């Protein structure tokens, strides 16, 4: 028994002055700095009671350049995209969009725990849609389990079998026609970097 005593002081050197400008540039994140820290977002959030930092704190930490704290926070992964915070924000801040941008940054920086499935799912889902224009759930689930927790996957063999039997899991990859056109669209809208891409010159 005892207390774990550690320094909680933060030095300016630990902040990333480029972090807030980076996020602010992204689509929907323009009003990051309009936050008055009223806490409405946290109050209305159905999941904030499980978060290590409330949505309000995530906005504050982002704005102040505490990149590591934000990207390692479970908040961005717990967000269920219900948009209640965005709807309620008295300053019209698109908090859900900001959290999406933070997720992208966290994926880019691999700032989540090893084997944490949500970013892997996001990534695989995106890759599949980008490649085929559709998802094939059987392939997606297998990929996810292989990359995170194979053991847990093997334990679910019965469920998998039933899904195959009922026709929910197919073995033929699904695809749209003219996949090239989809890729052109995605390139046009500034795929991946989250900024307003605009037409390429």
């Amino acid at each position, binding site marked *: 028994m005892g207390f774990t005593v550690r320094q909680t002081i933060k030095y300016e050197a630990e902040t990333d002055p480029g972090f807030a400008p980076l996020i602010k540039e992204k689509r929907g994140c323009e009003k990051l700095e309009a936050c*008055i*820290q*009223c*806490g*409405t*977002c*946290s*109050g*209305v*959030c159905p999941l*904030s*009671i499980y978060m290590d*930092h*409330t949505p*309000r*704190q995530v906005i504050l930490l982002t704005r102040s350049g505490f990149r590591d704290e934000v990207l390692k926070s479970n908040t961005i992964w717990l967000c269920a995209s219900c948009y209640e915070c965005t709807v*309620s924000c*008295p*300053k*019209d801040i698109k908090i859900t969009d900001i959290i999406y941008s933070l997720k992208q940054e966290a994926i880019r920086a691999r700032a989540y725990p090893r084997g944490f499935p949500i970013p892997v799912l996001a990534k695989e889902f995106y890759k599949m849609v980008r490649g085929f224009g559709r998802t094939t759930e059987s392939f997606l689930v297998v990929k996810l389990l292989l990359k995170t927790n194979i053991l847990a996957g093997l334990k679910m063999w019965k469920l998998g079998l039933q899904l195959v039997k009922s026709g929910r899991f197919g073995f033929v990859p699904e695809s749209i026609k003219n996949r090239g056109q989809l890729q052109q669209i995605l390139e046009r809208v500034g795929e991946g970097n989250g900024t307003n891409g605009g037409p390429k010159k």
Partner: protein
Amino acid sequence: MDNGDGKVRIGFYVCHCGTNIAGTVDVASVAKYAAGLPGVAVSRDYKYMCSDPGQDLIGEDIREHGLNRIVVAACSPCLHEATFRTATARAGLNPFFCHLVNIREHASWVHSDRAAATAKVYDLIRAACGRVRHHKALERKRVNVRPEVLVVGGGIAGIQAALTVAESGKKVYLVEREPTIGGHMAMFDKTFPTLDCAACILTPKMSQVKAHPNITLWTYSEVAAVEGFVGNFKVKVRRKPRYVNEEACVGCMECVDACIYKEPKFEDEFNQRLGKRKPVYMSFPQATPKVVQIDPETCLHFKTGKCKQPCIASCSRNAFDFNQEERFEDIDVGAIIVATGFKPFDPARSPKYGYGHFPNVYTSLEVERLVNSAGPTGGEVVMRDGRKPKSVGIVHCVGSRNLQTNRWCSKVCCMYSLKLAHLIKEHTHAEVYNFYIDMRTPGKGYEEFYNQLLEEGVHFIRGKVAEVTDWAMTPEEEGKLVMRVEDTLAGFVRRIPVDMVVLAVGLEPQADAQGVRRMFNISCSSEGFFLERHPKLAPVDTATDGVYLAGACQGPKDIPDSVAQAGAAAAQAMALIDKGYIEMEPNAAFIDSEECSGCKSCIPLCPYTAISFDEVTVKATINEALCKGCGTCVAACPSGSIKQNLFEDVEIFSEIEEVLANA
């Protein structure tokens, strides 16, 4: 003054303005350049032209060199045009032969390239010297100013303004829409931060208004129309029928007791509909004027014509007049003080707080009536369900600081919420929670009051309440209103069960502010509050001369600020009327009636309603006193028959030709 030879002799002066101009513009070379322009007899640069020696320089040169035109290249005409015109007039030259060129805001402050800025100044002064030769000697016209003042709105601001003007010996008309003066302040119980009883400090002033020989008080009346201009407004006041002769009634209330309705049955507006009144009623015991009135919407006589009218029988002074009709009074006044106040935010617009849905959710104004001993509960804080609350949550910023409703801070809510927290605790010993975003207590004794509240054990939670529900998640929450909020200082979400919720509603413009704005020809800020002429240096003036603002119609304000502003508005009005006349700027438009075809196209365009149509001559005429010299009519006139002093075609065209001469 043309030295008899008819030649234009221009004196040119360029100001250094310290380094404001000289830092970016080569003033010495500007002076040298000007010396070579046609007609320039004297050309100088000087460190501060607006200083006394600078102004003297102009006078000396006029006398010594027989100058008949002056061009000063300095700052904005808004700042020093009057200075240099006066200096010119002092030396005996008509002040409108002096022209100011703005080379500070238009050149030195907005450019960094010295050579380019200097070249631009060359162009500007060439244009000025080109136009000034065509200037004419103009005279300022004098217009008499009437000594009466109209005050619109009888809240604390209007009362203070009316009393101040009346005390100076001037006649005041005070027009109030409601049956009594007193405004919102009359509804309050105590006032922050001193906890003075609102009625104790307000009602003596109300009586003073009623008794003052210089004040004509018209309640239950509205301004219906305003015509005229500064010093000479013609105002029509609509006096609504109260079916009681104000002069006869003494407010004995015998009629209220005698009314056919034995019990008060109808919603009492003054008590925020928390109490009941009869069809014949007085808003509150100290109502001023102390007369009753009849509400035709609820009076049995008006509804059915079958009432025995015991009210009439009970009145020993024969004050009832059921045939009274709306009537109009026409008055002439020199100045108008608009003090029409504010409207509290309607919290039904923020449904998450449950106002109108949960009976125990109140607005702050309703609670003011509950804690008031003259209120519907006699000062007992009891809820709509008859219980006394054991716990109360006060939500700050309701409707305020929110882009979805009103984006501004309403300024008074933090302080009145503290006051209500104190009063509720005092009346009920309940646990009181204040939910705030930022605690704003700037003001004399305000922060001390906050400290007092902290020491009284009132809870303060920094966070905007997300929702008020009656959905219990724990046994303690059963039967309560639950406030869900992030305690932002603690960093986690809390659920706080309370019996009663008080919504600290913000202040917003009156619902009819736009109509009032148009009637008095003033502007509104984007929020809809009336716009002052300058936010810092002309806070009670408006864009319309002779119309002044006082109180919360100009923006959210507490009582001390409203009273101070009312005093300022009264002083401004008095400064205008006491002089007895005003001098008009001569840059007004005028009509060459030979040319005018009487097409009337100018009339609706004039933003100052200065143009009227003379049915006899069939020509348009411009009221010089109203014309602000905006030039709209000049540009619009299809026959070119409207001209404007200082902006005649020859002046403008020569200015354009010269500014483009090097282009």
